[in-house]
């Protein structure tokens, strides 16, 4: 780190977290939910709306930063940013907040994600653009994919899973175990959508096939809900209501040969079994001065079981050809070497596009998780891995 003029290591912290309930029908607007989650995060931090001078929005959010600002009656916003794409955003949003604070552009930054992902437009219903007569052009790249009936993220990840099975002999049982593990964490979390619904490996195999090899329970939930966090300097966070979840390091990354667009172009890459998460993790661990063996608990972005599996090797927790066996060994369990998705993840807690993972990472660092990893001091929180990626490492404040 000695040749880096500016370092953000440990300088900023997450001081507050807030969330609505997660449901199939919120019966209210995304704006209302974003407002509620933000107010909850501010209250959690012991701050008020007048303290907020920065907002970071996810590019897929239907609530813009200025909509949220107006809803809350904010007076002092001097920084705003939009980050994407989609599920890749959350840690990238943290990166923007850290940059803003370190450059003196703002002191108290709100990040949020609000979506009626079940009662409104559902991810599983088909990608935006599917309803147009002609697709593609202007770097959307859809012209090479959608006309062939490739229209959902599930089909996209099914292709990755199928190739993973070809290259490494990964099995459905190994993917199913990931679903079962996330569900078990949710079963201990009263706020999780799947709190009172158990899932066994038999249940997993009995789930209907959606796009081979991915079955119903390989898919994450579709959720109505909102999450928000408040970020400020670590120094200031220490004076607030909660122990700070220190942002040890954060990183964003693209990769040469990674392709443009947002999702389907990944299929045109040389390898579809290693994602942008791989080069990202090098940058992240370098900035943190840590390695995978230092991580006590991880919140992996899990839109599908295969999504999580791909990250296990990309982040260096196991070798590329051993990810399936790694899962089978129990490594992801509470007693394993890397407990994961301790609130249930996108799979079973709720799908707030990866922002819920940030909140759970903070809980682990505060010691307040419903599946608390004893003595956890370092938590990896990842955002979606495919086309570009972002991730952060939190430490106990």
């Amino acid at each position: 780190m000695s040749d880096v003029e500016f370092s953000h290591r440990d300088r900023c912290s997450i001081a507050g977290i807030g969330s609505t309930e997660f449901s199939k029908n919120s019966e209210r607007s995304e704006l209302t939910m974003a407002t509620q989650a933000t107010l909850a995060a501010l209250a959690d931090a012991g701050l008020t709306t007048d303290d907020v001078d920065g907002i970071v929005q996810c590019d897929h959010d239907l609530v813009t930063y200025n909509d949220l600002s107006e809803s809350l009656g904010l007076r002092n916003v001097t920084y705003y940013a939009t980050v994407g794409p989609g599920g890749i955003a959350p840690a990238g949003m943290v990166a923007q907040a850290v940059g803003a604070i370190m450059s003196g552009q703002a002191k108290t930054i709100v990040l949020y994600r609000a979506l009626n992902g079940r009662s409104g437009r559902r991810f599983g219903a088909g990608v935006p653009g599917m309803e147009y007569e002609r697709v593609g052009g202007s770097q959307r790249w859809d012209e090479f994919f959608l006309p062939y009936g490739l229209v959902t993220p599930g089909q996209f990840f099914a292709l990755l899973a199928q190739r993973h099975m070809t290259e490494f002999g990964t099995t459905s049982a190994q993917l199913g175990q990931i679903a079962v593990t996330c569900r078990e964490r949710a079963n201990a979390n009263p706020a999780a959508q799947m709190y009172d619904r158990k899932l066994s490996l038999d249940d997993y195999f009995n789930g209907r096939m959606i796009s081979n090899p991915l079955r119903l329970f390989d898919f994450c939930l579709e959720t109505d809900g909102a999450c928000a966090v408040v970020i400020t300097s670590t120094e200031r966070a220490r004076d607030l209501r909660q122990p700070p979840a220190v942002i040890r390091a954060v990183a964003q990354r693209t990769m040469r040969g990674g392709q443009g667009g947002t999702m389907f172009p990944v299929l045109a890459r040389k390898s579809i079994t290693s994602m942008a998460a791989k080069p990202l993790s090098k940058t992240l661990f370098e900035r943190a001065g840590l390695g995978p063996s230092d991580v006590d608990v991880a919140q992996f972005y899990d839109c599908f079981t295969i999504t999580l599996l791909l990250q296990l090797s990309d982040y260096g927790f196991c070798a590329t050809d051993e990810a399936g066996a790694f899962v089978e060994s129990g490594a992801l369990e509470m007693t394993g070497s890397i407990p994961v998705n301790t609130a249930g993840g996108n799979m079973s807690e709720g799908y707030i596009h990866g922002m819920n993972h940030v909140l759970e990472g903070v809980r682990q660092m505060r010691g307040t998780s419903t599946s608390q990893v004893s003595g956890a001091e370092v938590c990896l929180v990842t955002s979606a891995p495919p086309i570009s990626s972002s991730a952060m490492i939190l430490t106990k404040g």
Partner: protein
Amino acid sequence: MTPKRILPVDDDRDTGGFFAAAKERRLVVRSCESCGANLHLPRAYCYHCGSFATAWRETAGRGTLHAWTVVEHQIHPAYEVPYTVVLVDLDDAPDVRLVGNIPGRPLLEAGMPMQVWWDDVDGQVVLPNWEPATA
């Protein structure tokens, strides 16, 4: 009324040439005339050698099956399940991967030879499509 298949935008300045060639039953890839690198998905600038001298190059239309998925859950009315989406690597341009659609649940094997066929979609556009190679 039969639901209509999704059509590609076929006049984009970077990608339109692919579909213009397909209309003539030619499978083309974007290539750098300076260093020979294939540029896929198609774009105008070659970052390998820094040249803008890129053009469409005709390929033989044979490939190798990289991956596939049998779609079982009905999403779009014009694509009736079950159908199989395939990813094919071109034999004479191995860093170019294209997509195809095969009805039903065909018997497939990773690495099997594939060949292009010309999928005329309602007279509106011709899509290069893929099927297991015959001989």
